[in-house]
């Protein structure tokens, strides 16, 4: 069926023929090299794809155009193993669910159908004492999408990115053949971070982390400027999880130095660092069931919401957020869901930017000076960001297109209609590329293709590996067209 698709940023809509793969029976995890009925159906779609190609789509949470294919085919992966029945049971513990295999009680490994969301997976495995080893700021991503974007979480400096915890994938390649790939295969690393352009992942085997509670012990610290924020984040490397929210604009009262263009005014923040809470330490009220995991979204932005994130609104939000944090470092217990997935508190929050949508600019910079320069530039452009997140990365992995690498990452959300935004972001790209950094393809919707090679020096290596899996270039997305990937 023809559908108009966008990414989470709701920009640059294009039309594609959206195909849901029908699967008659609930799938069991694949065994050996035999294609499952589901994989046979996927293979059939790949073999019959038209000249404008095919791309798989999960939950559509990449911000840009990675999961759309103008004039071509978009293969909608089912949210559960059987494609028909929705995984809609939200209350109560679910012992097992479609598309999620049993957890190996020794290794913590579990096989998950690619379309299953981290939300569904967590609801199944947390009550059994397991946690997803790497989770982004939302649970509403599919496992396949998480691998395609090689997502990271607040523990990157400690545990690496999503691909680090994957022990095996099943992939239908551009010829329609099924592969089982492990991290020992070079092709595996083209798939991890490969933005879905190497094939359709049908199943991911993940190594989960044992936990004894669904609670996090969180240390919260307010910082007054960017230097202090960065210092506190560096300090927080000792914790398994750490992240900083920062105020790009900063309070007007301390902006005395802003005429020099330095970032003294902005960059105040709230740094949080955390560990999983041991069951014995869970607060009394919850100790009877420490593994209970039943997060709910309390608010929702309805369709048609106008752009409510005006500059004054963002300034007010930032002020309130900063003031809500304790003045002195404080340690408290928070539900894992609210610590890891603050974005999930408001359903459809992307609608808050109105119908023009927004872009998320996320960069990696080996050098903190780049981050300073970028923030100063954004400040000069008076570009307010409702969510500006700063975090430290540990070393990267073998994926040529994998985003994370040692250094700092900054993510800001900017309304697409902001005056002068294209020029500002182009300038930031130049600086980031010159400093040996890069922008995140899962967030990108506007990078200049010429800069891609500088940002991803292993690009040609990835292309070689991709050529092995998809010689005819069946897998095409608007992202791959726009950036000539």
């Amino acid at each position: 069926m023809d559908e108009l698709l966008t990414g989470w940023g709701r920009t640059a809509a294009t039309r594609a023929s959206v195909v849901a793969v029908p699967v008659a029976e609930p799938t069991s995890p694949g065994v050996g090299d035999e294609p499952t009925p589901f994989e046979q159906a996927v293979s059939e779609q790949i073999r019959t794809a038209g000249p404008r190609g095919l791309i798989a789509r999960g939950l559509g949470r990449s911000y840009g155009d990675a999961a759309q294919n103008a004039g071509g085919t978009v293969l909608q992966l089912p949210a559960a193993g059987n494609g028909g029945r929705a995984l809609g049971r939200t209350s109560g513990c679910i012992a097992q669910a479609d598309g999620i295999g049993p957890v190996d009680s020794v290794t913590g490994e579990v096989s998950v159908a690619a379309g299953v969301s981290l939300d569904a997976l967590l609801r199944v495995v947390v009550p059994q004492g397991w946690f997803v080893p790497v989770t982004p700021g939302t649970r509403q991503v599919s496992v396949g999408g998480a691998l395609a974007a090689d997502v990271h979480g607040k523990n990157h400096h400690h545990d690496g990115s999503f691909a680090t915890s994957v022990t095996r994938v099943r992939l239908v390649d551009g010829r329609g053949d099924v592969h089982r790939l492990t991290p020992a295969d070079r092709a595996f690393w083209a798939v991890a971070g490969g933005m879905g352009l190497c094939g359709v992942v049908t199943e991911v085997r993940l190594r989960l982390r044992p936990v004894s509670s669904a609670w996090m012990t969180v240390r919260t610290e307010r910082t007054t400027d960017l230097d202090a924020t960065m210092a506190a984040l560096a300090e927080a490397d000792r914790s398994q999880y750490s992240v900083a929210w920062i105020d790009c604009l900063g309070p007007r009262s301390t902006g005395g130095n802003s005429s020099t263009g330095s970032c003294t005014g902005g960059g105040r923040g709230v740094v949080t660092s955390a560990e999983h809470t041991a069951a014995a330490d869970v607060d009394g009220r919850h100790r009877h069931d420490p593994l209970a995991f039943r997060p709910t979204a309390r608010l929702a932005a309805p369709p048609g919401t106008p752009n409510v994130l005006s500059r004054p609104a963002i300034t007010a939000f930032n002020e309130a957020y900063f003031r809500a944090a304790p003045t002195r470092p404080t340690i408290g217990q928070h539900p894992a869901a609210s610590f890891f997935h603050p974005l999930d508190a408001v359903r459809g929050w992307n609608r808050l930017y109105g119908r023009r949508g927004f872009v998320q600019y996320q960069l990696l910079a080996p050098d903190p000076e780049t981050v300073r320069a970028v923030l100063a530039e954004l400040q000069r452009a008076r570009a307010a960001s409702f969510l500006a997140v700063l975090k430290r990365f540990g070393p990267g992995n073998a994926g040529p297109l994998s985003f994370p690498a040692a250094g700092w990452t900054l993510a800001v959300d900017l309304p697409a209609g902001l005056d002068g935004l294209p020029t500002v972001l182009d300038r930031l790209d130049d600086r980031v590329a010159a400093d040996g950094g890069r922008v995140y393809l899962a967030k990108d919707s506007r990078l200049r293709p010429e800069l891609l090679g500088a940002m991803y020096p292993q690009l040609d290596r990835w292309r070689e590996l991709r050529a092995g899996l998809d010689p005819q270039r069946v897998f095409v997305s608007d992202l791959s067209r726009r950036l000539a990937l």
Partner: protein
Amino acid sequence: MIDALGAPESVLLVGGSSEIGTAIVHHLRRRGRLRRVSLAGRPSARLDAAADELRAAGVRNVDVLYLDVSRTDSHAEFTQRAFAAGDLDVVVMAAGVLPDQAAALADPAVAVASAQVNYVGPMSVLLHVSTRLRAQGHGVLVVLSSVAAERPRWANFVYGSAKAGLDAFATGLGDQLIGRGIRVLVVRPGFVPTRMTAGLPPAPMSSSPDDVGAAVAAALSGPTATVWVPGRLRWVMSALRHLPRPVFRRLPR
């Protein structure tokens, strides 16, 4: 592809030597993503000069395509050539002539020939092109209409009636293409001093080709479907269109 902030990679300009049309292309070029431009029109030194100017400005692939807008039987073949190098992100319909009204009234053939260039030909090209755009699933059609389309005046009604037809056609086409990933941007400039309007007395609220280019480039990413240049003409025209005819007729030029 047109990126999230409205910067295209490829543009086809129908009416390739049009001053407003080339101004639009240059504004799109400044967004830093433009790699391929096709200028379509009848061969002329101006057309070649426009192509050279784009090359000099750094557009990698610029080519000139032969097109006679009034010859509708050539449009299928033209469209095929125009899309031969791949997707077109933006197609600008800027072909048009301003007939001498006295001559057109004296010789119906002059009036008909102008309507062929201003209305019938563009309609045919837009239909051929929109079929291709539908197949590629994305793209923007920019159609140069005119304030004259909103309410043609007796001093210029031969031209105005053709623009009114084109405007109605483009607006309808835009609505028909909703949900297909294709947007139609109807551009209604006021008086623009160009070769086409040379010799006419300047009208109030005029704008330059550059102003029109800037307005179109700005509208390329947003949800806007109608662009007035300057913007306040929208309110002026919405008042003018409701004037009683005897009053409208007597308005000074």
